[in-house]
């Protein structure tokens, strides 16, 4: 335990170089927009740091310099128009600097036009269902059995021995690399939310409405996320796994999931 406390102190001080287990920052992600989001996040973070250093610096200086010492007389001033105008204007300027790139990224995020493919994701308590538009491919995606067993209150399985504990599913969502995938989200019961940090996407699945979002993954790999809106008892147990494959591998996978192929190998 002490080691953890100690490490955390180091962690707090040396923020950004995270070791494998000590993720301290938002992932840069694997899409153009996730990188932009990350940059925005860092930009506003640095502004806050700068303001913080300045403001806290002045405060600390004042706390030391202006503490009561023998013979010291407090000043009596109680307003200054000039100062007030300055510290009203400067924050406004900073905010304007922040708003412009944010708005630009936001507009791109909302632009779901001209996708290469469309997937309809429907949320259920507590699993996801994916349907590939224009293909005969549809399946449920639920928490992997290994985690499902280990997560029980009375299970004696140590979560550390389970690979990707709570972040693994039986049937991941599979998409090709470098393609604009439009995701249409809805829900069958309560509000859920589809979140994969590396794709920088989070969008609510709302019963009776269809929400749109999109991503274009640039790097092959497996990306994990979770349902991000409280949806009842097992809200913590409906992970999302996205497998990004090379186009050929994706085509092969798609073919294997077509109904004819499915008859021989029913699941997985």
């Amino acid at each position: 335990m002490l080691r953890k406390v100690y490490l955390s102190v180091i962690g707090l001080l040396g923020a950004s170089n995270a070791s494998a287990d000590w993720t301290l920052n938002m992932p840069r992600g694997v899409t153009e927009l996730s990188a932009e989001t990350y940059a925005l996040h860092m930009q506003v973070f640095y502004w806050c740091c700068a303001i913080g250093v300045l403001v806290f610096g002045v405060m600390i200086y004042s706390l030391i310099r202006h503490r009561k010492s023998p013979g010291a007389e407090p000043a009596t001033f109680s307003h200054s128009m000039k100062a007030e105008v300055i510290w009203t204007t400067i924050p406004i300027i900073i905010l304007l600097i922040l708003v412009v790139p944010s708005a630009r990224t936001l507009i791109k995020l909302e632009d779901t036009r001209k996708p290469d493919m469309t997937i309809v994701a429907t949320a259920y308590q507590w699993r996801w269902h994916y349907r590939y538009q224009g293909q005969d491919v549809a399946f449920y995606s639920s928490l992997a059995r290994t985690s499902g067993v280990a997560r029980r209150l009375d299970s004696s399985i140590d979560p550390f021995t389970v690979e990707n504990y709570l972040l693994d599913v039986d049937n991941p969502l599979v998409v090709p690399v470098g393609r604009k995938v439009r995701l249409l989200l809805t829900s069958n019961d309560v509000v859920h939310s589809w979140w994969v940090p590396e794709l920088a996407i989070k969008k609510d699945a709302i019963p009776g409405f269809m929400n749109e979002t999109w991503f274009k993954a640039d790097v092959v790999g497996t990306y994990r996320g979770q349902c991000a809106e409280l949806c009842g008892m097992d809200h913590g147990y409906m992970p999302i796994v996205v497998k990004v494959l090379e186009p050929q591998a994706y085509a092969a996978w798609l073919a294997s999931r077509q109904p004819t192929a499915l008859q021989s190998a029913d699941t997985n």
Partner: protein
Amino acid sequence: MTSAVMDAHHSEEHHGPAKGIRRWLYATNHKDIGTMYLVLSLVMFLTGGAMALVIRSELFQPGLQFIAPNVFNQLTTMHALIMVFGAVMPAFVGLANWMIPMMIGAPDMALPRMNNWSFWILPFAFLMLVATFFMPGGAPAAGWTMYPPLVLQTGDAFPYLIFSVHLLGISSIMGAINIIVTIVNMRAPDMSLLKMPMFVWTWLITAYLLLAVMPVLAGAVTMLLTDQFFGTSFFLAAGGGDPVLFQHIFWFFGHPEVYILILPAFGVISEIIPTFSRKPLFGHDSMVYAASSIAFLSFIVWAHHMFTVGMPLTGQLFFMFSTMLIAVPTGVKLFNWIATMWRGTMTFETPMLFAIAILFLFTIGGFSGIMLAIVPADIQYHDSYFVVAHFHYVLVPGSIFAIMAAVYYWLPKWSGHMYNESLGKLHFWLSAVFVNVTFFPMHFLGLAGMPRRIPDYSTQFADFNSIASVGAIGYGLSQLLFVYVVIQCVRGKGAKATSEVWDNPKGLEWTLPSPAPYHSFEVPPKVSSESAFS
């Protein structure tokens, strides 16, 4: 009528406290009612805190330890409801009851019987709420935000939740009316609005916020009730409604609500900092304008809690801009406090220590608030522990610290005795250290992708979670010290307090003896010297 009749009434009117339980059940005295509010708040804080400790214990390591997931959700929901409506709001109303009449030179609140009613509704409301733990289906578990359709899956607790929220609303509305009327109508004759102390000002603004948004919450939960039991379709798409409509209404209440939780805290530190800097509050008038602007802006930013629901783009842009604007008046307040300390002669008694910690830690919470306002980034932060970190930074070392600072600051005035300064300082340092150990790591958890409201998590989140849990236990235990210090002081264990208590503080409350007389001012005091109000 004759003056003989009047005099006969006087002897009844200006009596001391009644004996026994009736003093409290039938109370019309602002100090008695204030005390009851504060005691209720402390009990609720410990209850809500105990729930937080169960939450943190469950999250100490991955895997389920003690409680089932649905119980975890119940605890999260009740923790928040109890802390927000049971700990912070009643504490500020209690402070308002105690201090506002003393600060404006009034004998009591304007509507003392209604004051009693506002208070006594609360214990019943919380009785109803907490009793739901023992009902079939357990306590409400849909989060304090009560989003449909999930909240409609609540078991027998559902109508109890709705009606207890109604009771809380009735209580707050009456409390707010009382405070507004007291401030507007009961001020000493020559105290103009702009001469009012900051705590009174911030409460006036807060009371208007309460008046405007508590009915909105009541309306929202009423629609939940009719959707559940009478077949209406407000939040049902098939009938032409929309689940998101509830979110809009809830946050139209909810965002002003979070400023209801912080504006009186701003008021408290605006009283404390000048006293211990021995300098008048810098920019009194601009503080008033800033607080008013915060209140105004709070009505047009609500959808920043809903950036992932699929709002049209223009809506998202609008709510991003308006939210960011709140940094400006809040910054003005912060800078004014710093300017108040600047070239003062500061001493660091416990209330001042808490006030300074608020300046640092609330600002950190405000920074994460600004980060949350950036929509693309919020899409990543939303519903992750980053949000949990944000709001605990503004709520715990913001509101809770301010309440404790206020208690240390005014307790000698209330009880007539000094509290134990060294234990007070110890309490401060323990709180200040542990609050950071608890909530700072939550930023990292959120950024690393840990969603909120989950009872169990993947192994990569284990380290920071266990640090946070240790911090929570440390922080919780430190609060027992606070309880001890307060009890000792109230029992008269400390030195006798002078009427000024501190080194030449400004304000009418310090012209009264300590402990303050049962009816604060029986005749209007003269407010002559301009410096009486900092």
